């Protein structure tokens, strides 16, 4: 079986205007060639702190899988099943690990001033991701259908109502909170995670503070 590229000659004006070609060019150009999954990293990438971004990503994968498993049985499953309780426990602890790794990652990037070199958007998407993750976890706590969910809802409504958010985001409505928890916020977290990773791969790992350009040195 052979494959063929688009039968388009270079400089073909109609192909240049094609939406498909434009989107392909944009997607391909998001990250420099060979940087999506590079086999090498700059020599300065040599510290345990770099592991925590990947640990956060691995934790997110476990959070999503355990959350999906919990969804199979429904919101009240874990109250009546030992298997359900174990799956709920897996979900809880993966979330705790996710946040622990994410906070260490965030602090690490702060002390490295990782926004340098045109990486401000990488930092900003990371912070927004942290906030979106807090919202996702919070709606999870509201979806537990237990005493914690009752009390957290009763407490949280006052803060949210005080700034007008509660009128639209009703923590006293478990059905609404469950859908935010399993659909809207995970979608937002997933989307921002993809953006964050693209930006990381696009710009590469931030060089050390006050590092000189190796190219200028050679010149």
């Amino acid at each position: 079986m052979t494959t063929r590229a688009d039968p388009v000659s270079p400089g073909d004006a109609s192909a240049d205007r094609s939406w498909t070609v434009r989107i392909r060019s944009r997607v391909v150009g998001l990250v420099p060639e060979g940087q999506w999954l590079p086999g090498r990293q700059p020599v300065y990438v040599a510290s345990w702190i770099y592991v925590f971004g990947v640990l956060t990503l691995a934790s997110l994968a476990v959070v999503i899988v355990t959350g999906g498993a919990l969804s199979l049985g429904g919101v009240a499953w874990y109250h009546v099943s030992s298997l359900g309780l174990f799956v709920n426990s897996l979900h809880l602890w993966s979330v705790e690990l996710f946040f622990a790794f994410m906070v260490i990652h965030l602090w690490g990037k702060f002390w490295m001033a990782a926004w340098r070199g045109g990486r401000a958007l990488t930092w900003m998407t990371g912070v927004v991701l942290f906030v979106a993750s807090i919202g996702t976890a919070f709606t999870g706590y509201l979806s537990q259908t237990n005493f914690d969910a009752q009390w957290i809802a009763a407490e949280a409504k006052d803060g949210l109502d005080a700034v007008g958010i509660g009128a639209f985001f009703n923590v006293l409505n478990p059905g609404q909170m469950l859908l935010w928890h399993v659909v809207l916020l995970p979608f937002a977290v997933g989307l921002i995670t993809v953006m964050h990773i693209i930006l990381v791969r696009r710009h590469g790992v931030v060089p050390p503070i006050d590092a000189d350009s190796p190219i200028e040195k050679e010149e």
Partner: protein
Amino acid sequence: MTRRDKTPDSHDFPTRSYDLVKEFVIALVVVVVLTGGLAAIFSSPDENAITMSGWAKAAPNDLITTAAAELAGSSTSATYGPPYNSNGDGLKLGPLSLQKWAGVRLPVDSAGLVIDPLSAVSGNSELTSALAAWKEATPEQQTKWATDYVDAIGTAEADGEPATGAGGDPAKVAAGEYGPAPVLAAGLLTLAQTGGLEGALTSSGNFFGGDQTKALLLLSDGTYLEEQAVARNLGGGQWGMMNETGNYPGQPWMWLYTFWYQVSPFTTSHADNADAEVWGLMMLLTLLLVLLPFIPGLRSIPRWIPIHRLVWRYYYRGAGRR
């Protein structure tokens, strides 16, 4: 980003072998093992939700007092303002009346929390007569009956404050002109004891329920829910928002939000408006964190406190330049 960002392009540096996929797979295995181990050892908390029948059995006087306050329009939710009613303006964030501007989008009639469930009860002539008397009375008369009844029940001695009325015990209320209020409040207690109150208070108005706004407002208007929470160290002044039942970590990532509720002025002069001001403060701090790369001074802290010398110690020693 300094005044002139001279950070070189990372792709210009010499490289070394680095297996990202292997790193991710090892990280995944570590997280799976840690998660499984923690779940197997510590499990997860699951204390049953408070039921209305549980409330009725454990604290009947509180439920009756709450029902009377709902009828009188003096409960917390009755005087809350938006988004539940127009009986208050709500809190303000400086000059911004965000709570009021959001409007009454979740309308809840506090007397309805008592009257609506009782209206579905049949076979109780005393209750039926009381409901009829209540509905025929003017709003002023309704409020007077219920308010007098609330005052007559009174409160128990607490925090150095002397007891009022019957000391919080409806059974010891002095005779008076309370109209149907005592029968209605007692009727709600009976309905709660049967286990039928949750279903009668569902806010979605159909078979499937799913919206507990009314039930949670009624429960929150009593003192029982908060007493149970405080007994578990979950009160607002006990870092309650970030904790959960049992010895579990809860939501420690919310520590800063919860922190403000533990300190002055949010516990003292600004306590009444703390919910709005703490939210406003957290929104401001979050915005500062998002925009950190552009804020002079703050963005230079990592340069002033050289923890980065530890992260890149091999590079700075010159090993990376060979």
